[in-house]
């Protein structure tokens, strides 16, 4: 009991420490209620906030529609059907994950803007001038929806696909024996059964959308997030900005409630080791399926990557620069370090929640996971306030005791960066690991314990093998996210420490897109390694599931 109490305490403590930047935001909102300065907020409400809300809501709805339609359809086609290229596509569809949204935005602007090659060529061919023809405006709300959907759909794809793979053959076979065609099987059986997974994937994508600053800012779409920065930069009002961030936090909590609610509405347990036999597609159906899967790959990855490659060729001298390789090393090292750290923390919290599901533990763990939807810069500011306060304390103590000034130990070092990544990305790994843990039914633990296994043996023989895919997924998702992370890195990094994302941003911010090419391409290349690893792991798990068909299924 004493151990449990202690463990509960440390769990809550971990969650609270992770949630510190969010608490700073809550604090500034509370100050507002306590009669703080509301003049900025009043002005914003009267002028721009309605537009922020409108744009943010439209953006969320659009991205939700985009990621669900692309993610679910490709996931179903690559799991349930067989057509030429299906095996390649089933892992290649994860590649857009390696593409930072703002980089994709730069490349499409470069290609499709009025002065870009596409429109210029059209004008040359047809002898058009400005106003003679209609061409969609890339930098617009719909442009932002498209770009974000193309980059974020792999979240839905990844999680939904895992569910489709696990869907019981019997259910689908029953459907087929009742005369349903593949399309009806999908609509009436697979889709409703996969709803919790789709909602989880979509929530991740939407949280990422809410936190996005780079894309919407570049496209001139005024959302809540751009509003936060405008308030800070333009009005010089950090408090007002944090108050807006607090409103964003409320929206996120709402989003999460919707997700929880939708999951609690539907709890299906129909896992089996025997996957359904795939549908063989032939003729025009195979071609259509193939095209449907190639389109998001081409537009979400291949085209932007080609554009980056062509810019990089213009700047090929950079590749011989040792400083450039230092950046690559920094980015990669940081990603690996942060991924390991965040996943360990997520495991600790997820197990704590599973084994000690008290209200306080559940609430604090949920709170710690909110950071994903908060713009990195806001987290960075909250963290900076907290860490520098700690630092001042340490320095004062050190001076009093040892007459020595150690300088800023926490806020000016890599520690601050790793802390920020933990806050921001804990949710990604927590959700993935929770999903994995959910698959291990408590009855399995109990059965093993009755058989005389010690708790450690249960962990090693049952949990470890079953959790491995989710841990791997979590590591990779966090690693790739850290690699792409920009705003928090920019604010919290130490002296003379740069990453690929920082370099790409500095160049692109100065409208030197070709100069942004090499670091952006490198970021994508480094991000590809983990994404390909993930894809292979997924493929393997599918193959091994297929092989198990020959065995009599054993249930615990």
């Amino acid at each position, binding site marked *: 009991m004493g151990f449990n109490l202690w463990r509960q305490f*440390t769990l809550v403590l971990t969650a609270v420490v992770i949630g510190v930047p969010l608490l700073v935001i809550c604090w500034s909102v509370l100050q507002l209620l306590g009669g703080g300065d509301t003049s900025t907020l009043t*002005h914003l409400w009267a*002028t721009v906030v309605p537009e922020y809300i409108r744009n943010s809501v439209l953006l969320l709805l659009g991205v939700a529609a985009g990621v669900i339609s692309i993610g679910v359809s490709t996931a179903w086609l690559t799991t349930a059907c067989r057509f030429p290229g299906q095996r390649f596509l089933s892992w290649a569809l994860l590649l857009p994950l390696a593409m930072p949204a703002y980089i994709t935005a730069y490349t499409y602007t470069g290609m499709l*803007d*009025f*002065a870009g090659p596409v429109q210029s060529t059209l004008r040359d061919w047809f002898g058009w*001038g*400005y*106003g003679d023809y209609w061409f969609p*405006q890339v*930098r617009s709300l719909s442009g932002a929806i498209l770009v974000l959907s193309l980059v974020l759909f792999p979240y839905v794809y990844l999680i939904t696909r895992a569910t489709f793979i696990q869907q019981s053959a019997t259910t689908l076979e029953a459907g087929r024996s009742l005369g349903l065609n593949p399309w009806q099987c999908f609509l009436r059986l697979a889709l409703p059964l996969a709803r919790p997974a789709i909602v989880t994937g979509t929530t991740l994508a939407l949280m990422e959308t809410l936190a996005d600053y780079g894309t919407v*800012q570049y*496209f*001139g779409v*005024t959302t809540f997030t*751009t509003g936060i*920065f*405008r308030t*800070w*930069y*333009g*009005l*010089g*009002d950090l408090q007002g900005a944090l108050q807006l961030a607090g409103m964003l936090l409320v929206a996120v909590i709402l989003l999460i409630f919707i997700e929880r609610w939708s999951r609690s509405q539907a709890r299906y347990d129909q896992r089996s080791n025997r996957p359904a036999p795939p549908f063989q597609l032939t003729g025009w159906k195979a071609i259509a399926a193939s095209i449907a899967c190639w389109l998001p790959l081409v537009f979400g990855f291949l085209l932007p990557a080609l554009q980056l490659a062509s810019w990089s060729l213009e700047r090929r001298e950079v590749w011989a620069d040792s400083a450039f390789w230092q950046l690559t090393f920094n980015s990669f090292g940081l990603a690996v370090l942060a991924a390991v*750290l965040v996943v*360990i*923390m997520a495991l*600790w919290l997820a197990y704590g929640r599973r084994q000690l599901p008290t209200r306080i533990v559940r609430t604090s763990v949920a709170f710690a996971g909110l950071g994903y939807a908060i713009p990195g*810069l806001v987290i*960075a500011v909250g963290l*900076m*306030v907290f860490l*520098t*306060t700690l*630092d*001042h304390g340490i*320095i004062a103590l050190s001076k009093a005791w040892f007459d020595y*000034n*150690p*300088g*800023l*130990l*926490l*806020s*000016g*070092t*890599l*520690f601050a960066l790793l802390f920020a990544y933990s806050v921001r990305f804990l949710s990604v790994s927590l959700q993935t690991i929770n999903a994995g843990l959910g698959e291990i039914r408590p009855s399995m633990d109990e059965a093993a314990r009755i058989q005389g296994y010690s708790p450690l043996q249960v962990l090693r023989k049952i949990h470890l093998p079953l959790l491995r895919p989710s841990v791997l997924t979590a590591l990779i998702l966090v690693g790739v996210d850290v690699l792409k992370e920009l705003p928090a890195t*920019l*604010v919290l990094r*130490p*002296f*003379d420490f*740069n990453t690929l994302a920082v*370099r790409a941003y*500095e160049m692109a*911010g100065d*409208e*030197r897109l*070709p100069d942004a090419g090499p670091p952006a391409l490198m970021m994508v290349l480094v991000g590809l390694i983990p994404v390909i690893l993930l894809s292979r792991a997924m493929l393997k798990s599918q193959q091994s599931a297929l092989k198990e068909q020959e065995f009599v299924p054993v249930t615990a």
Partner: protein
Amino acid sequence: MSSTMLRKLFTLTAIAAGLTATVAQAATVNLYSARKEALIKPVLEKFTAETGIEVRLLTGGGDALLARLQNEAANTPADLFLTVDAGNLHRAAEAGVFQPLTSAAALAAVPDHLHGTDNLWVGLSLRARPIFYAADRVDPSQLSGYEDLAKPQWNNKVCIRSSDNIYNQSLTAALIEHWGEEKTEAWAKGLVANLAKPPVGGDRDQLKAAAAGVCDLAVANTYYFGLMQTGDDAEQREAASKLKIFWPNKDEFGTHVNVSGIGLTKHAKNKAEAEQLIEFLLSAESQAWYAATNNEYPAVEGVEWSETLQAWGEFKADDLSMTFLGENNAAAVKLMNRAGWR
């Protein structure tokens, strides 16, 4: 348990990293810079080569660096803070992160209107924000100044970027000082009504749009035009060739200009070295490089302009004290919010 242990481990490494970082090297200056690495590092390296003083650099957004400075307070490692735009410099001065400069050489080198209040900072370079016009469609005799941007005759013919951008905020802040708030707000509304396209993209995008025929007039900072003219992208060079600069309001306050500037932090630990670096940045040679590398105008008078700048010709620059731009910034943003300038 593992995570708390890990946290301890990280604390230890952080301390170790901190220790190695703070064990003072012989002579160092620590610089927080809102100017990008590529536009400052070469001149810092030159300083180190000439003086033996190491310069440690941290780049970032001006506001974020300022927030960091404020939070680090007395324990900040930064000796100098370099930022672009008068609005940002003013905000830093107001926040109390600077101390007055004492170097007589540095203060004498820069004209008075480019000094912060109480000499809390000095300007390093100037950028102008004139009006560009499509040479084949616009007769410059039709133009007089910024007020044209709001006149009905240019309906659907004006390109300018978002009001999120500090350049537009500073321009509006300057106009508030010259025209008063009421007239400026009417101007902003007229400008918004005249926009040929939504105010998206950067300055260079506005110039490209004007060259391509989307609009006839575009507002942009001169150095973007310079980058287009001298860059290695043939299309951009061609676009730039279709545009000409109009220096507005030459009989009144002149063309709106803005600064990049530097100040000594209140808690600087390496004050002497830091001021030495400022003096170095104001030397004729550094000024020429610093300005030319970003197509800006040197802050020190008498330093020769780059060829690109000389080709644009002389103009009357607004010599409004830079502090006004900072003071009026918040009012400008609110005004633009009301005018519907996105």
